[in-house]
């Protein structure tokens, strides 16, 4: 019962143990059933106040969290703030203190600076859930990806998962790598070398230079969104070339002729990293990912909310 309790905050998957990961996934499985009920609501977090603090614009993640919160009967408040680069630092420290003063129970934060979730978690007693901090981690995305794979394959252990695209700038990639490795999957990254961290192999992942090879090797692909800034930042010459060389296209999948699962954290750049007929096709689990997202977030909020606020997040289960 609560043997692998999570502690005060969910900052990332790097510091969670396999037992803790499994606890979250098993709990999320239960919450999927709640979303099928006629009344999609349970009183588990009734009376709790949760603030969604989104410094970076994000409709889908915020809405997913909001559904999760409301289905747990919590009261939610949305704060969207685009801090200017000059006042960013003050904004976060002052925000932390204001939230503390208002006795908020939980904060879900998305922020452009790596480390910002941990920064907040150390300064307020409320539970903090990282909804994406800079390039560091996006733990609930990592968890819903794990749940989706587990639903599809029955297990994670021994699965071969290739993460494709701009791994260098991707918090989704990092969370995926941690979660998959801890549950025993084999992980590879595939993308242009200019978008892969030089020392990524030190995290225990294989580097596959070309997408066709990745498709041949993998049981599942997690296709990352390629941002326009990568082109203007000189990392790749053009989006068109990226699609030609690295795009997950119908032709490539047909050529490989295998039953491979395609994931994408969204939002998609159709025609860049992934073609529409793949995204909407039979291999895609992109919509189940979204469903699982709400369940995973409900599980995380439920598991954290019972925790003693003085606990620190530790790695091991009991």
């Amino acid at each position, binding site marked *: 019962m609560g043997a692998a309790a999570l502690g005060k905050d969910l900052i990332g998957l790097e510091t969670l143990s396999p037992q803790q990961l499994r606890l979250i996934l098993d709990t999320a499985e239960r919450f999927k059933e709640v979303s099928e009920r006629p009344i999609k609501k349970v009183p588990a977090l009734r009376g709790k106040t949760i603030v969604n603090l989104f410094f970076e614009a994000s409709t889908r993640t915020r809405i997913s969290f909001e559904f999760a919160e409301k289905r747990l009967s919590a009261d939610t408040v949305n704060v969207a703030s685009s801090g200017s680069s000059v006042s960013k630092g003050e904004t976060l420290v002052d925000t932390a203190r204001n939230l503390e003063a208002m006795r908020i129970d939980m904060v879900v934060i998305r922020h452009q600076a*790596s*480390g910002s979730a941990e*920064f907040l978690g150390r300064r307020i007693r409320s539970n903090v859930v990282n909804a994406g901090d800079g390039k*560091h981690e996006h733990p609930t995305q990592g968890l819903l990806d794990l749940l989706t794979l587990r639903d599809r394959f029955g297990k994670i252990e021994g699965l071969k998962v290739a993460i494709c695209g701009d791994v260098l700038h991707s*918090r989704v990639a990092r969370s995926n790598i941690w979660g998959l490795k801890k549950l025993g999957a084999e992980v590879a990254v595939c993308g242009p070398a200019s978008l892969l961290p*030089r020392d990524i192999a030190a995290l225990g992942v294989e580097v596959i230079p070309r997408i066709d090879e990745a498709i041949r090797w993998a049981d599942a692909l997690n296709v990352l969104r390629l941002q326009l800034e990568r082109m203007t930042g000189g990392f790749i010459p053009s989006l068109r070339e990226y699609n030609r060389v690295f795009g997950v296209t119908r032709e490539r999948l047909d050529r490989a002729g295998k039953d491979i699962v395609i994931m994408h954290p969204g939002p998609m750049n159709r025609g860049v990293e992934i073609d529409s007929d793949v995204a909407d096709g039979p291999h895609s689990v992109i919509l189940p990912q979204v469903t699982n997202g709400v369940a995973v977030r409900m599980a995380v909020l439920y598991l954290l909310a019972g925790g003693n606020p003085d606990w620190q997040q530790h790695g091991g289960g009991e």
Partner: protein
Amino acid sequence: MTRPILIRGGRVIDPARRTDGIADVYLAEGRIASVGLNITGEDGCEVIDAKGKVVTPGLIDLHVHLREPGFEDLETVATGAMAAAAGGFTAVCAMPNTDPPLDNQGAIGFVISQAQKAGKARVYPIGTISVGQKGEKLSEFGELLGAGAIAVSDDGKPVMSSHLMRTALEYAKTFGCPVADHCEEITLAEGGAMHEGIVATRLGLKGIPAAAEEIHVARDIILSELTGGHIHLCHMSTRGSAELIRRAKDKGLRVTAEVTPHHFTLTHAACEGYNTNAKMNPPLREEADVEALREALKDGTIDVIATDHAPHHYDAKEREFDDAPNGILGLETAFGLAVTELVRPGIIALPDLLYRMSTRPAQVFGLPGGTLAVGGPADVAVLDPEAEWTVEPSRFFSKSRNTPFGGRRLLGRADLTIVRGRIVYDRAGD
């Protein structure tokens, strides 16, 4: 005139003359009057018992940021000079990235007069290479040096234009003054917050590759060869840089270099947990780099230890890693870190360390001091290399507190610092 001082019975180490033995040192009229056994001082002279301590020429730091003019809430010339004295330093060289920058004689003169008023460690201003440190037009070296500057640097920023660096080296030759460079290739380093490596990858922070420093180190060495000018390479941080410098010295080029205590002590692992007190430029690097820098200090490839003392406000460091400013304090922990990390493990002997912290800095920038030769300035430090102490930032003389070493146990500290024959720091009275 202050009364003469007789420092009795200490282990007197003069790295300049390679002497090391128990002796007395007698200071009078601001000069070293005599060094020897059983000196009898004048009646009424101040006698200091240095038994069990080390008596040495005062330490000299070629690279500090005193923040005045412009950022007096972080540090002033006075508080910096006091912090220096508490660290055993009798002289520091102040970098010009102030506001306004030290690119004119008025600003240089201001720093000098503030230092004189403070009456603690000597402060030698460094003038800018370019006007406003903008990297476009040469500043008036003649005017700056005439006003009291002892070197030129655009530190804080690199000199991106190789043409400007070349002309600076050539023009500086006229005055025999060193050009100190902050080696950083901005297009590679831009936006980076720490060393490009596995820790940065895990923390999701943009990294600064070692290449960003080494490219400019190589360039500066080549330009020094081309021009015959004296290039001084600031805060070296990589094993690649050490290797380049070694080869340059083998060729007899006029290249000197410095390393900070944090670069021979800490690695990028110190950034774990997004610790902003481990954020500096150049960043903390890998184990192999730390080892190479220690080796380089030992074999003289790197000439001196210089702290790059960089005060920052608590609020400034109390923010997300990406947004936090670079740099940490150094003056009050330098000797302790050097003894703990270099002397105690047997990497460098104490006299050689003192050479790197006193004699050689004086030589590199052509400053008085760094020696206990009779007739030289009475800038002396009485150090206790056996003292164990805990770093308490709240007790620093510096106005700021940004150090990652709070709570750390160190071996070695200054007991007494004397400048121009006057005691400017006495730990007993602290």
